[in-house]
C-alpha cells in the first residue's frame, strides 16, 4: 500500500485536483518503461493491478504492452513485481460474463507471439511460491481461452515439459493441485504433448499424488490426477504401450484393493468386495476402472494383464457391494469378444443384512460367475432385494448383464452347452433340477401382476433368445426341453453361508399330464396374457402396460426362435397359436402399436416357414392373411418401426425412462425405468422384416423365397456350384485335349507307315542306282578297251601306210599336248 499511496500523491500533482482514470492509467503505463527505476515500475504495476477491476478496457488498451515487457524483463529478477504483473495479466485475460470479448482480445495480444508463453513456462521453474502459483493460474486461463495456440507454443518452449513436471512434484499442495488443473487443459487433444509429458515421467508423478491423497479414498485432487492419467492415455496408443511397460497397471488394481496377481481359482479378498462408498470415491473408482477398460479394449495388451482386469470387473460387478452405477460400468467395460471363463470362475456374492444401512453384509454360497450373472439379470442386485421398485439404475445394470450374457454365448459351443443343460437327461427318472433361467422363463403370468415377476420373465425371454438366435442346433435342443412342473423356490440359488440351506420344497403336482415343452408353455402363457390384457382395457393403464411388456417379451422370443425353424413353427401352430395371434391384429386399438405389429410379423413368419406337413398348412393360413389384408399387416409392422420404444433402442441403450407419473422433485437416481426391446432383436427385425413382408403376399404353393436355405447355406451352395462348374469345365478341357492327342497319334502312325514305305522305296532305288553304276563302269572299261584297241589298230594301220582319219589323232595329240604342258 505504501507504493500505491506514494504513486497517487505523485500523480495527484500539487493542485490536488482529481484526475480521470484514463489519465492515471496513461501515466502509470509510461512508468512501466525500462528506463524507470525498478521500484517505480513495481509501484506502477501494483497501481495498475488495482485499477484493472474497474477499468479493464483502459488498462488493457494502454498498459498491456508495458506489462508484457515487465513480465519478460523483471519477473524473473523481482518476485514482487513478477507476482503483481502475473496477477494483473490474469485479471485482464480472465473471462467473466460481462467482458468475454475483452478478455479474449487481451488473450490474443498476450499470445501474439511465442515469447510470453515461453517466459511463462520458464517462470514455472522459479521456486517462489507466488510466482509459480500466479503463473499456473495465468497459464490455465490462457489455455481456457486459446488452447491450441498455447499448446503449439508449449511444444516449442525450450523448457516446457521439464518445468511442468517440476511443478507436479512441488511439495506445496496448492501448487501441485493447481498444476494438475493446468495440465488437464494442456494435454487436451494434443497427442504430442501427452507423449512428451509421459516421457518426462508424468504418470509416476500423478500416481504419487494419487497415493499421497489416499488413493481412491482421496478427494477431488485424486480425481483430477486420475483424470490427467486418463487424458494422457485415451486415444494415444504410444502412451498406452509405454504405460503397460511400467509398474502402474497393477497399481491400478491395488488402488481398488484388488490383488494384481490373483489366480483364477483364488477368491477375491473380502476387503475388495466390501468397502465403504461415498460419491467422491465412486467418481474416483469410475475413473480407475475406465482407465483399466481402455487398456483392456485397446490392442497390444498382454494377455495376463487383460485377464486380471477382466477378473476385477467381474468381481466388482457380481461379487461386491459397489454402488450400482459402478457395477454397470464394470460390466460394460468387459471386452466385446469375451473369452473369460465365466462358468469356471467361482465368486462369493454378498447380501446386505436388512436394517443395517449397508454396514453389515451376509456372505452367500460361492457360485460360478455365470450363474451369478444370470441371477443378476433375472432378479436384479442382491437377489431382487430392490426388484419391485424397478429403479432405472438397477435396470441399467440388469441390461448390462444381459449384454454380457449375449457376449459370452456368442460362441456356438457355449450356447449349445447351456441349452443342453436344460434338456432332461434320459437316465435320471426324477425331474432334473430346473435352471433359474428356465424357471423364470416359464413363470406363469398371474393376475394381478407382480412388477418384479414381469421384469424377471421379460429378461428371461431376452436371455433365452440370445441362446437360440441363429443357432439351428440350439433351437432343436430347446424343442426337447420339458420343464418339470416342480418349481424351484425362488432364490434357492442364494443360500446364506451360515444358515442351513433351505431345501427346495417339492410341490405336489395335481395333474399327471406329461410335462409340456417350453414352446407349448410359452404359447399358453401368451394366450393367458392376451386374455388378462383384454380384461384390463381402460381400467388400469399401468397394469395394461405391464401386460403389454410381457406379451412383447414372449413375442420377441418366439419370433427369434421360429425364424427358419419349420419344426418349431409346426409345434407352435399345433399349440393353437393361430387364434392367439389373429385376435390382437384384428383389434385395432389406437393406443398400442407394438403388439399388433409383432403379432403380424409372427403370423407372417409362421406362414413363411410353415414347411412341415401337418394339420395347419400354408393353405389354411393363406385365407386368414387375405381376410386380415396384406396391406393392413404390413402397415402394422411398419408402425413397430416407428414406435419410440423401438427407435430409442441402441447397441448401448436399452433402458428407457418410464413415461408415466414421475413424482415431482424425485431424485433422478430413483427414477423409474423400463425395458422393451434389446438391440439384438431390433437388429434382427431390421434385417428380416422385409422377408416376412414379401412372404405374406406369396401364393401358398409357391416355394419360399428364403425358406430352407438360409443366407449362409445359400452362399455355401453357390460356392459349391462354382466349384462344380469349374470342375466340369476342367473335365471338358481335358477331354478335348485327349481327343487332340489321339488325332496326333493316328497321324503319327500314318507317318510311320509312310516312312517304312519310303524307306523300302529308297532301298529299291538305291539298288537300281547301284546296278546302273556298275553297268556304267563296265561300259567305261569296255570303252577304254575299245579305244586302246583302236589306237593300236591305228598305229598298225599307219605302220601299214594306210590312211588314218586325222581328227581322232589330233584329239590324241591335243590330249598329249595338254598332258605335256
Amino acid at each position, binding site marked *: 500500500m505504501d507504493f500505491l499511496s506514494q504513486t497517487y500523491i505523485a500523480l495527484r500533482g500539487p493542485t490536488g485536483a482529481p484526475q480521470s482514470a484514463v489519465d492515471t492509467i496513461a501515466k502509470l503505463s509510461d512508468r512501466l518503461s525500462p528506463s524507470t527505476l525498478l521500484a517505480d515500475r513495481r509501484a506502477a504495476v501494483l497501481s495498475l493491478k488495482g485499477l484493472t477491476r474497474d477499468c479493464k478496457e483502459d488498462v488493457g488498451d494502454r498498459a498491456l504492452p508495458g506489462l508484457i515487457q515487465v513480465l519478460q524483463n523483471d519477473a524473473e529478477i523481482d518476485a514482487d513485481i513478477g507476482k503483481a504483473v502475473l496477477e494483473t495479466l490474469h485479471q485482464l485475460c480472465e473471462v467473466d460474463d460481462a467482458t468475454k470479448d475483452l478478455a479474449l482480445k487481451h488473450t490474443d495480444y498476450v499470445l501474439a507471439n511465442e515469447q510470453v508463453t515461453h517466459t511463462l513456462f520458464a517462470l514455472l521453474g522459479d521456486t517462489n511460491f507466488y510466482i509459480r502459483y500466479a503463473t499456473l493460474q495465468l497459464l490455465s486461463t490462457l489455455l481456457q481461452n486459446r488452447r491450441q495456440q498455447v499448446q503449439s507454443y508449449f511444444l516449442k518452449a525450450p523448457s516446457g515439459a521439464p518445468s511442468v513436471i517440476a511443478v507436479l512434484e512441488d511439495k506445496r499442495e496448492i501448487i501441485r493441485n493447481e498444476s494438475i488443473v493446468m495440465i488437464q487443459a494442456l494435454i487436451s487433444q494434443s*497427442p*504430442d504433448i501427452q*507423449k512428451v509429458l509421459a516421457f*518426462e*515421467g508424468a504418470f509416476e508423478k500423478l500416481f504419487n499424488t494419487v497415493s499421497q491423497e489416499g488413493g481412491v479414498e482421496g478427494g477431488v485432487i485424486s480425481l483430477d490426477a486420475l483424470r490427467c492419467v486418463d487424458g494422457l492415455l485415451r486415444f494415444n496408443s504410444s502412451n498406452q504401450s509405454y504405460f503397460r511397460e511400467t509398474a502402474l497397471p497393477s497399481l491400478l488394481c*491395488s488402488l481398488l484393493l484388488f490383488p*494384481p*496377481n490373483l489366480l483364477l481359482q483364488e477368491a477375491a479378498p473380502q476387503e475388495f468386495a466390501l468397502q465403504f462408498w461415498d460419491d467422491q470415491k465412486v467418481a474416483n473408482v469410475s475413473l480407475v476402472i475406465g482407465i483399466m477398460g481402455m487398456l483392456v479394449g485397446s490392442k497390444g495388451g*498382454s494377455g495376463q*494383464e487383460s485377464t486380471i482386469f477382466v477378473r476385477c470387473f467381474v468381481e466388482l460387478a457380481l461379487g461386491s457391494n459397489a454402488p450400482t452405477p459402478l457395477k454397470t460400468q464394470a460390466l460394460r467395460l468387459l471386452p466385446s469378444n469375451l473369452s473369460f471363463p465365466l462358468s469356471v470362475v467361482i465368486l462369493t456374492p454378498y447380501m446386505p443384512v436388512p436394517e443395517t444401512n449397508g454396514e453389515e453384509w451376509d456372505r452367500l454360497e460361492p457360485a460360478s460367475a455365470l450363474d451369478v450373472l444370470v441371477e443378476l439379470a433375472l432378479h436384479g442386485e442382491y437377489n431382487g432385494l430392490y426388484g419391485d421398485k424397478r429403479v432405472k439404475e438397477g435396470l441399467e445394470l440388469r441390461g448390462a448383464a444381459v449384454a454380457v450374457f449375449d457376449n459370452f454365448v456368442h460362441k456356438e459351443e457355449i450356447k449349445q452347452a447351456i441349452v443342453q443343460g436344460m434338456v432332461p437327461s434320459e437316465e435320471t427318472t426324477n425331474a432334473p433340477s430346473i435352471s433359474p433361467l428356465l424357471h423364470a422363463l416359464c413363470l406363469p403370468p398371474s393376475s394381478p401382476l407382480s412388477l418384479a415377476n414381469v421384469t424377471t420373465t421379460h429378461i428371461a425371454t431376452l436371455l433365452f433368445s440370445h441362446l437360440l438366435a441363429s443357432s439351428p442346433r440350439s433351437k432343436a435342443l430347446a424343442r426337447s426341453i420339458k420343464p418339470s412342473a416342480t418349481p424351484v423356490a425362488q432364490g434357492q440359488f442364494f443360500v446364506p453361508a451360515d444358515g442351513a440351506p433351505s431345501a427346495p420344497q417339492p410341490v405336489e403336482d395335481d395333474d399327471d399330464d406329461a410335462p409340456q415343452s417350453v414352446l407349448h408353455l410359452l404359447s399358453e402363457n401368451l394366450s393367458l396374457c392376451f386374455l388378462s390384457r383384454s380384461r384390463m382395457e381402460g381400467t388400469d393403464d399401468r397394469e395394461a402396460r405391464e401386460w403389454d411388456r410381457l406379451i412383447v417379451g414372449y413375442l420377441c422370443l418366439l419370433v427369434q426362435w421360429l425364424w427358419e425353424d419349420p419344426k418349431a413353427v409346426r409345434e407352435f401352430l399345433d399349440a393353437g397359436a393361430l387364434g392367439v395371434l389373429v385376435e390382437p391384429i384384428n383389434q385395432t386399438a389406437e393406443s398400442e402399436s407394438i403388439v399388433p405389429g409383432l403379432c403380424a410379423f409372427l403370423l407372417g413368419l409362421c406362414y413363411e416357414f410353415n414347411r412341415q406337413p401337418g394339420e395347419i398348412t400354408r393353405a389354411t393360413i393363406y385365407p386368414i392373411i387375405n381376410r386380415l389384408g396384406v396391406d393392413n399387416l404390413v402397415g402394422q409392422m411398419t408402425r413397430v418401426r416407428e414406435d419410440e420404444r423401438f427407435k430409442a433402442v441402441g447397441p448401448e441403450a436399452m433402458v428407457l425412462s418410464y413415461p408415466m407419473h414421475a413424482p415431482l422433485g424425485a431424485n433422478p437416481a430413483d427414477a423409474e425405468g423400463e425395458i422393451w426391446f434389446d438391440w439384438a432383436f431390433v437388429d434382427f427385425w431390421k434385417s428380416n422384416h422385409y422377408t416376412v413382408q414379401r412372404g405374406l403376399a406369396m401364393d401358398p404353393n409357391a416355394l419360399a423365397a428364403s425358406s430352407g436355405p438360409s443366407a449362409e447355406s445359400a452362399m455355401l451352395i453357390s460356392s459349391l456350384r462354382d466349384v462344380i462348374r469349374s470342375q466340369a469345365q476342367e473335365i471338358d478341357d481335358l477331354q478335348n485335349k485327349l481327343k487332340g492327342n489321339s488325332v496326333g497319334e493316328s497321324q503319327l502312325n500314318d507317318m510311320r507307315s509312310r516312312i517304312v514305305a519310303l524307306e523300302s522305296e529308297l532301298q529299291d532305288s538305291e539298288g537300281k542306282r547301284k546296278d546302273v553304276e556298275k553297268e556304267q563302269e563296265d561300259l567305261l572299261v569296255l570303252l577304254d578297251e575299245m579305244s586302246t584297241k583302236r589306237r593300236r589298230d591305228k598305229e598298225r594301220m599307219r605302220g601299214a601306210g594306210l590312211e588314218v582319219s586325222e581328227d581322232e589323232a589330233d584329239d590324241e595329240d591335243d590330249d598329249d599336248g595338254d598332258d605335256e604342258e
Partner: protein
Amino acid sequence: MAGITWHYVLKFIITGDAAVGKSSLLVRLTDQRFLANPDPTLGVEFGSKLIEIPEEGKIVKLQCWDTAGTESFRSITRSYYRGAAGCLLVYDVTSRASFANARSWLADVREHADPHLTCILVGNKVDLCEESGEGTSSGRREVPTEEAERWAEEEGLLFVEASAKSGRNVEAAFEQASRDILDKIKRGVFDDDRSPGVKLSRPTNGSLALDGASAKQGCCS
C-alpha cells in the same frame, strides 16, 4: 523367479534425418520384423524391449522413443533429448546428405541432452550396398565406412553399421550403447537417479514386484 526381472531401465532416443529408417530399426528391435513401407513418424512413438548384457550379468529394459525426422517436428522431438540416457544417431549409408545432416542432429543432441548421454552413430541400410555390391563399384553406398568411423571417433561416438531389413547389427547397436551406459554407471558417472534416463529397478515390495513378474512373462514368452 528371482523377483527382479530387470536391473536397469534405460531411456533411448532414436534420431536422425527423415527416412533413414529410424522407425524400422525400432520395429526390428521390438518385433523382430521388417517394417516394409512405414508412414513417416508423427511426433514420437514408443517401443520397449528387454535385453541381457551377459558380461555384466544384468538385464536391461530399453525404453525407446522413436522421433520424427521431419523438420516440422524438430522442436517437439527436442523435448525428448533431455531425459534420455542413450541416443541412436541414425544416417543412411546410401545418402550422403543424411550423413552430412548427422552433424546438425549431433549438435542438437549435445545442446539439449544430458552431457553424459551415450551416443552411437548407426549407418543404416547396409543391405542395399551388399545386394548390388559386387557388380557396380560398391553399389549405392555413398558414405564409406572408414569416413563415418573416423568422424565417430573424432566426436567420441560409438559406431556401427546396421540393417533394419536384414536385422544385422540392430540388437548389437543397442547392446553396445547399453554396455557403455552400464559402464558409466559402474564408474559412478551417474549418481543413481541423477540421470533422468537411467532408473534402477525399485526395491521389490508388494505390487511392484508382482508387476515385474507379470511384465517378464509378457515380454519373454
